[in-house]
C-alpha cells in the first residue's frame, strides 16, 4: 500500500529533523556564556571540587566528543541526567509530560468542538448576529493573554463563586490514583477511582478552558473561511439540486471538505498547546513539562533543556505526521 511507503518516508524525514534539532539546541546551549557548575556549586567552591564536578558531568571533554556522546545517548534513549534533580531526564519528562498532555488534550477537545461549531454557524449565518458574536468571541480569545484569562476565571469561579477548585491537579485530601499513564484522569478511570476522577475533572476544567479558548479562535476562523469557500463550490449546488436538506448539505457534503484545512490548524495548535502550556501551568500550579523546561532554563540544567526541547520537537513532528495521515483519510485525492 502506498500509505505505508508514505509513513516510512515521513518518518525518515523526521529523523533528519530530530538530528537537526539536537545539533542546534546543543550548539546554542553550549555557546551561551554561562557556567552550570558554578550555578550548581555556588561561586566559592574550591577548584578541585569544580574539576571533579566537570568530569562527572562530562563537561571537561572537547565539545565535539560531548556531542557524539550525547547523540549516542539519544539513540539509546538516554538523555543524560538532570543536573538539578540528579535523575535521568527521560524519567523527569515521563513524570511531567503526562500533566501537560492531559491538559492539552482536554483543551484541544474544547477548542475543536467550540471552534468548528462557531466556524460552521459563522459561515452558514454569514453577517448575521451569530456570525458577529462568534467572531468577537474568538477574537477575544486570542487577544486576551492566557495568564490574565486564567486569573480572571480563578477569581470568578474559585474565589467569588466557589464552584470550581483553584490550583493543582487534585485536592489535598483526595487519594491520587495508582500511576499508570501519569494522566490523573486516565489513571483514575483505569483503576476505578471515581472520587479522584471527579475531583481531577473539576480541577482541569478551568485551565483547559483557558488554554482551549485561546486556541478556539484560529480553528473557528479557518473553519469559517473554509466553509464559506466550500459552500460556493459546484458540488454543493449539485447536492442542493438533488434536493438534499440544508442539514445534509452542510454536515455531509460541505463539512468533510471544509475540514481538510482545519485539520492542519488543529495539528499545529495542538503542538503549540503542548509546548506553550507553560503560562497556564504556572497560573494553575500544574507540574507540567512547560514548567519543567522553564525551570531547567533558569537553572542552566543543560541535559534537561536539551532533553525537553528534543522531546517537544519529537512530539511536534509526531503530531504533524498524524495530521498528514488524517489528511489522507479525509481527502481521497491525497492518497493517489
Amino acid at each position, binding site marked *: 500500500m502506498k500509505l505505508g511507503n508514505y509513513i516510512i518516508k515521513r518518518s525518515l524525514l523526521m529523523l533528519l529533523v530530530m538530528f537537526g534539532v539536537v545539533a542546534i539546541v546543543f550548539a546554542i546551549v553550549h555557546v551561551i556564556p554561562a557556567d552550570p557548575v558554578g550555578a550548581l556549586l555556588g561561586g566559592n567552591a574550591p577548584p578541585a571540587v569544580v574539576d571533579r564536578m566537570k568530569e562527572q558531568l562530562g563537561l571537561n571533554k572537547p565539545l565535539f566528543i560531548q556531542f557524539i556522546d550525547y547523540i549516542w545517548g539519544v539513540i539509546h534513549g538516554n538523555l543524560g541526567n538532570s543536573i538539578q534533580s540528579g535523575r535521568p531526564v527521560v524519567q523527569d519528562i515521563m513524570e511531567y509530560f503526562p500533566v501537560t498532555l492531559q491538559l492539552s488534550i482536554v483543551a484541544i477537545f474544547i477548542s475543536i468542538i467550540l471552534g468548528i461549531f462557531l466556524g460552521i454557524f459563522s459561515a452558514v449565518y454569514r453577517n448575521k448576529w451569530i456570525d458577529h458574536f462568534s467572531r468577537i468571541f474568538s477574537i477575544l480569545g486570542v487577544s486576551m493573554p492566557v495568564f490574565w484569562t486564567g486569573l480572571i476565571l480563578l477569581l470568578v469561579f474559585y474565589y467569588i463563586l466557589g464552584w470550581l477548585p483553584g490550583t493543582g491537579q487534585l485536592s489535598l485530601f483526595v487519594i491520587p490514583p495508582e500511576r499508570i499513564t501519569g494522566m490523573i484522569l486516565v489513571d483514575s478511570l483505569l483503576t476505578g477511582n471515581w472520587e479522584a476522577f471527579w475531583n481531577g475533572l473539576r480541577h482541569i476544567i478551568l485551565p483547559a478552558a483557558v488554554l482551549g479558548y485561546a486556541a478556539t479562535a484560529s480553528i473557528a476562523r479557518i473553519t469559517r473561511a473554509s466553509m464559506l469557500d466550500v459552500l460556493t*463550490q*459546484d*458540488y454543493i*449546488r*449539485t*447536492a*442542493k*439540486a*438533488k*434536493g*438534499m*436538506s*440544508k442539514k445534509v448539505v452542510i454536515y455531509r*457534503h460541505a463539512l*468533510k*471538505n471544509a475540514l481538510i484545512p482545519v485539520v492542519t490548524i488543529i495539528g499545529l495548535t495542538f503542538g503549540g498547546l503542548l509546548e506553550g502550556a507553560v503560562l497556564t501551568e504556572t497560573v494553575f500550579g500544574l507540574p507540567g513539562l512547560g514548567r519543567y523546561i522553564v525551570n531547567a532554563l533558569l537553572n542552566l540544567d543543560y541535559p534537561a533543556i536539551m532533553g525537553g526541547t528534543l522531546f517537544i520537537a519529537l512530539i511536534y513532528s509526531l503530531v504533524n505526521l498524524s495530521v498528514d495521515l488524517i489528511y489522507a483519510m*479525509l*481527502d*481521497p*485525492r491525497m492518497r*493517489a
Partner: protein
Amino acid sequence: MNDVLLEVKNLRVVFHTYRGIVQALDDVSFTIHRNERVGIIGETGCGKSVTSLAIMRLIEPPGEIVNGEIIFEGKDLVKLNENSLNTIRGKEISMIFQEPLSSLNPVMKVGFQIGESISKVKNISIKASQKFVRDALKAVDLDPERVVNLYPSELSGGMAQRVMISMALSTNPKLMIADEPTSALDVTIQAQIMNLLDELVSKMKNTVILITHDLGVAAQFCDKILIMYAGTIVEFAETKELFENPLHPYTKGLLKAIPKVGNKNKIVGIPGSVPDLVNPPRGCRFHPRCPFAMEICKIEKPTLKTESQDHLVSCHLYR
C-alpha cells in the same frame, strides 16, 4: 393547453452587487410542454443559467427573484418553502451542470453520490439503493462494478458527465435541465454525451431544457429554441422554423455568425458587445447593436408576441 409542464411568467431576477443592481432577468415568460426539448441559447451572461437556476430555486444571495411565477405542474415554485422544494428538486426536476468534475463531491465515492439521490426518492437507505445505482451506471455505459468505488478525481471529464447524467436521470424526473453539459468536454466526447442524452431521454420521455451557446448542438437535439439576449427572451420558435425563418435581428446575426465548411467569406459577427446589466439600455436591450433600430426601440421595451404559428418574437419590427 393541458400538457403544459412548466410555465414561467414575468420572471425578474436581480443580483445585488457593489456596483449596483444587476438586472439578470427582465420579465422572462415562456411555456414548456410535456416531452418537449427546449434549447435556451444566448451569449455568456445573457441569463440562460440564471433562468435554469431560478427554476430550481437555486438563486442564492446576492441574487434574488423579485417578481414572477414559475408554475410547475400547477404549483408556483417561487412561493414554495425549502422543504417543499426539496421534494421537487432531484425527484421532479433534476439538473446537470457545465463542469462535471467540480460538480461531484471530491470526498465521496461515485456510488454514494448517485445512491443519495435514489435513496431519497425511493425512501430507502443509501446502502439499499446500490442495486439501482448499478442500473443507473449501466444505463450511461459505465462499468458499474468499477465506477461505484471511484472518487471523482479518478474520473475523466466524459466519465464524470456520464455519472452526472446517471445521477440526474436515476430518479426519472419529469423535467431535466442540462446547463451546458458539453462545453467543458472535448468535441468527440461532446458528441458521445449528446447522443447518450438523446437516447436516454427518448427512452424515458423526460422533458428537457438544454442550455447551450452552441447552435449546432441545439439544432440537433431540441424541438424548440428560445433565444435570449441580455436577460430577455428575443425569440422562441420550433427549431426548423427558427433556422429557416429567423425574425429577430439578433437571431439573424447569430445564424450568420456560424462558420460553415467551404464558406470562404469572413464570418460576420454582431457589432458591439453585450450591454452592462447594471445599467441596461432603455427600451429594447438590443437596440444599440441592432442594424434596424428605430426611434421607438430606444424608448419602449418590445413584448414577446406571437408572430406566426408558435413563433414568438420580441421586436418592434413586427407588430
